[in-house]
């Protein structure tokens, strides 16, 4: 499936936590401006795989990665690939909303500040644009300098999205972004994802099979560190090729 359209190309990826073989020869394409979902039971390695894409696993001691992850055809694990640069291009939204204990505005401009921007006017413009992009502007425009921790959880999560949009990433990784949210807030984030995919490439890890079915274009099913099946989402959920996939989506285990 190597085509020009592949934003990310994972091939033969192995990952070890010490002696534990957490990802076993995983290959998967991520197509541009589409949503790719990773599903599978707890401990299958879907979050680990996601964290390979912005090298967040580097922060854990004893992790060894072999294989290739190409972002626009260049290998992000090559020694010449600057990891801070990678993380600006491949951003992440985490499982739990995790704003810094700072004001809403300071949260949004954090990434700009660490990138060296100090033009206040420009930062304010970008903050407004990003908050609008995350559908949060109307909720917070009158209290930008209030603490971000005062916001309800779903707004905190959208603030985390806005904080990411501010640095204009190319790819957005979402690690179970709705697991701490109620169904209505979840629906809003899902609508937001469909809007975001016009401009961004999205990879989402989810526990929730219906969520994958609702929002994603491609789905990968993982089990015990292996990619069992990767296909167009509709096919995965209506006519899976593998027996293991079929059993999982029909709720026999997981």
């Amino acid at each position: 499936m190597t085509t020009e359209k592949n934003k990310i190309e994972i091939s033969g990826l192995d990952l070890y936590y010490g002696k534990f073989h957490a990802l076993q020869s995983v290959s998967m394409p991520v197509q541009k401006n589409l949503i790719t979902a990773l599903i599978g039971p707890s401990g299958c390695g879907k979050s680990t795989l996601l964290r390979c894409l912005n090298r967040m696993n580097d922060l854990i001691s004893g992790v060894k990665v072999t294989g290739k992850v190409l972002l626009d055809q260049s290998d992000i694990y090559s020694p010449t690939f600057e990891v801070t640069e990678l993380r600006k291009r491949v951003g992440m939204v985490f499982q739990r909303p995790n704003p810094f204990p700072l004001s809403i505005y300071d949260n949004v401009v954090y990434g700009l500040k660490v990138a060296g921007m100090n033009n206040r006017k420009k930062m304010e413009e970008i903050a407004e644009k990003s908050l609008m992009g995350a559908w949060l502007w109307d909720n917070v425009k009158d209290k930008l300098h209030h603490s971000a921790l005062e916001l309800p959880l779903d707004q905190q999560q959208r603030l985390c999205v806005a904080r990411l949009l501010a640095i204009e990433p190319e790819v957005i990784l979402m690690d179970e972004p709705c697991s701490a949210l109620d169904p209505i807030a979840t629906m809003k984030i899902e609508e937001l994802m469909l809007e975001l995919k016009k401009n961004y490439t999205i990879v989402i890890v989810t526990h929730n099979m219906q969520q994958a079915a609702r929002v994603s274009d491609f789905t990968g099913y993982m089990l015990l560190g292996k990619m069992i099946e990767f296909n167009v989402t509709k096919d995965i959920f209506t006519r899976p090729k593998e027996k293991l996939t079929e059993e999982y989506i029909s709720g026999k285990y997981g």
Partner: protein
Amino acid sequence: MMRLNPRYVQRGAVFVLGGATVLTLLILIFIIFFILEKGLPVLTLNFLTGNPEDLGRKGGIFPAIIGSIILPLLAILIATPLGIFTSVYLSEYTRESKLTRLIRFGTDCLAGIPSIIFGLFGYIFFVITLEMGWSILSGALTLAVMILPTIIRTSEEAIRAVPKTYREVSFSLGATGWQTVKKVILPNALPGIVTGIMLSIGRSIGETAAVIFTAGSSLRLPTSIFDSTRTMAVHFYILAREGISQENAYGTAATLIIAVLLVNLTAYWLMNRFIAKRRS
């Protein structure tokens, strides 16, 4: 064995825990009251601003107040950056290994060494070997070495208590390790770090043994950091130990207690202001 009724056990626990708290507070209040009762009558403006006469039998304690300000201040200025940098390095830039555990064990041991040992070390190393003589510099360096382990360990604990997710988010937004330390970790660890610094200030203001061997006990007002000086704690010790003046000894002790209280109140006030400013 007969099983006790949990309700009585609960009542007993509340009694024991509450009793311990009340007892601790009572002892503290008693000490402060006792010192102030004996010392306050001596505390006059002349006592605070005057020079000592006749070895401290008469006159004031102004040079000792200056000594008690300058020595801990200098020691904190030396030890704080060193201690914070070390703790940042240990917790953020090294992975948990035998070496880091050994360093941690070493700092714990150093923190528990009696201060007179630091005094002897400072005397041999700073005063004699480095030929600094009995001076403010020798005393401050000795105090700095003495409080360094405390600052390192409390800072390290404070840094470790910063939620891991803050680091992850910061890195995920393209920040480098140092940017993460500067913008996320240190500001969030600050209350804990300040607590360690305050403990250290308290310890160095009250310190006698480490100072008497290194800064000496000159009663003259120092004019440079190479002059010898006498801190309030040393002054109190000499007045009481050599039976020079009980009244002035208690006057000095009262001044010392009030000074420590003021330092702590100011530190809390500054810290709360910082936190409020950051949150708004």
